[in-house]
C-alpha cells in the first residue's frame, strides 16, 4: 500500500512538471504561431489572386467535419468581383489538411494552395508540390474526382498517397460547392 502511494506520487510529480513546462512553452509560443498563420494565409491569398486590388473577408463557414473556415472575395481596382477564395479542410491520412481554393468568376478553379497538414513525409506531403496542385487548375466542380490514371478531366492521385490526394480533392470540392451556393444565388438575386 505504501509502495503504491510512492509510485503514484512519483508519476504525479513527473506529469505535473511536464504539464507546467508545456503550459509555459505553449503560452509563450501560441500567440506567435497564430500570428504567423494569419500572415501566411494573407500571403497565400495574394499568391492565389495576384491581380486583385484587395481580398476582403466575405464571411465564415463550417466544413462538414465541423471545422471553422472562411471565404473571401477578390476585388479589382474598380471594386468589381474578380474571383472567390475559400479556406477549406479535408481529412487526410494522419491530419486535417487546410487548403485555400481560388475560383474564377465562372466558378472554375483558378488555383489551390495547401496551407497546413501533417501527412506522412515523403508520401502524403507531396500534396504541397506544384505538379499536384496544378492538376486542379481549370477544373469544374463535376471534374473533382480522384482516379489513378492520368486524365485531363479528372484529378490523378499521387502514387503512394491516394488517401491524401482524395482528402485534398474532397476538401476542395466542399469549398467549391459552398462558394457556388453563396455566389451563384447572390448573382441570381441581383438579377
Amino acid at each position, binding site marked *: 500500500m505504501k509502495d503504491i502511494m*510512492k*509510485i503514484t506520487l*512519483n*508519476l504525479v510529480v*513527473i*506529469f505535473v512538471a*511536464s504539464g507546467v*513546462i*508545456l503550459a509555459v*512553452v*505553449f503560452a*509563450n*509560443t*501560441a500567440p*506567435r*504561431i497564430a500570428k*504567423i498563420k494569419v500572415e501566411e494565409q494573407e500571403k497565400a491569398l495574394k499568391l492565389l489572386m495576384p491581380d486583385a486590388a484587395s481580398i476582403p473577408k466575405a464571411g465564415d463557414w463550417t466544413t462538414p467535419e465541423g471545422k471553422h473556415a472562411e471565404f473571401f472575395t477578390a476585388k479589382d481596382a474598380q471594386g468589381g468581383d474578380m474571383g472567390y477564395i475559400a479556406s477549406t479542410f479535408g481529412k487526410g491520412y494522419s491530419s486535417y489538411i487546410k487548403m485555400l481554393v481560388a475560383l474564377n468568376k465562372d466558378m472554375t478553379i483558378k488555383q489551390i494552395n495547401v496551407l497546413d497538414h*501533417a*501527412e*506522412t*513525409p*515523403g*508520401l502524403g*506531403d507531396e500534396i504541397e508540390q506544384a505538379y499536384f496542385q496544378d492538376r486542379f487548375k481549370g477544373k469544374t466542380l463535376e471534374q473533382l474526382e480522384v482516379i489513378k490514371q492520368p486524365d485531363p478531366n479528372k484529378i490523378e492521385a499521387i*502514387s*503512394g498517397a491516394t488517401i491524401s490526394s482524395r482528402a485534398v480533392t474532397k476538401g476542395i470540392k466542399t469549398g467549391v460547392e459552398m462558394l457556388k451556393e453563396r455566389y451563384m444565388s447572390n448573382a441570381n438575386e441581383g438579377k
Partner: protein
Amino acid sequence: MSAQAEKISYVGLIKNGIFGENPIFRVALSLCPAVAVTSTVKGGVLMGVGVLFVQTMVNLTVSIFRKFINPRVRIPAYILIIATWVTVTDLSLNAFAHDVYKMIGLYIKLIVAFAIILSRAELFASKNKVTPSFFDGLGMGIGFLLALTFISFFRELVGKGSLFGHAIVSTKPVLIFIMPAGGFFVVGLLMGLFNWIDIKFFGGGGASGGGH
C-alpha cells in the same frame, strides 16, 4: 554493459553509436520511421537531425532524474519526457524559427514513437551519469542521421533518379525503391554491407537485430 560502458571514452561512446550499436544497421530499431521518410535525401537528413536533438536531450533529462524516477513506473516517465521534449521542440521551432519548422515540422512530431529514443533512455541513460548519457545520445543520434542519409541517398538516386530534388539520372527510375517495401530492401542490403565490412576488415562477427 553499463559497467563496461562507463570505462570507455566519450569518443568511444560516439563511435559506438555510429558503428558498434548503430541504431539502424546494428540494433535494427526504429525501422518503420526510417523507411517512411527516406524516400528523399532531404527527408532522411532532416529526420536524422530531429532524432539527434531529441535523443540527446532525452538522454540528458532521463540521466539527471534517473534517481528520482521510480523503476516501476520508468516507462511512462520516459515516454512523457520524450513527448515533452518533442512538443517543446515542435512549438518553439514553429514560433521562433518558422522557416526551419516548415522543412522539419512534419518529422519532429513523429519522433515521439521512435523505439530508439526509449531504448537508449532505458538501456543507457537510466544507468549512467549525465555526461556519458549526453555523449551516448549524441553518438546514437549521429549514427541514426548517417544511416538515414545513406538509405535515403540510395533510395532517391535509384527510385527517383534525383538527389536533393535535382534530377541526376535521366533513365526511368526503379519506382519500387521509393515505396516502403523498397525501403526495407535498401535497409537490408546496407545492413548486409555493414556486416560484410565488419567481418571482412575488422574481424567482427557481424550482427543482426530484432526490428521494431
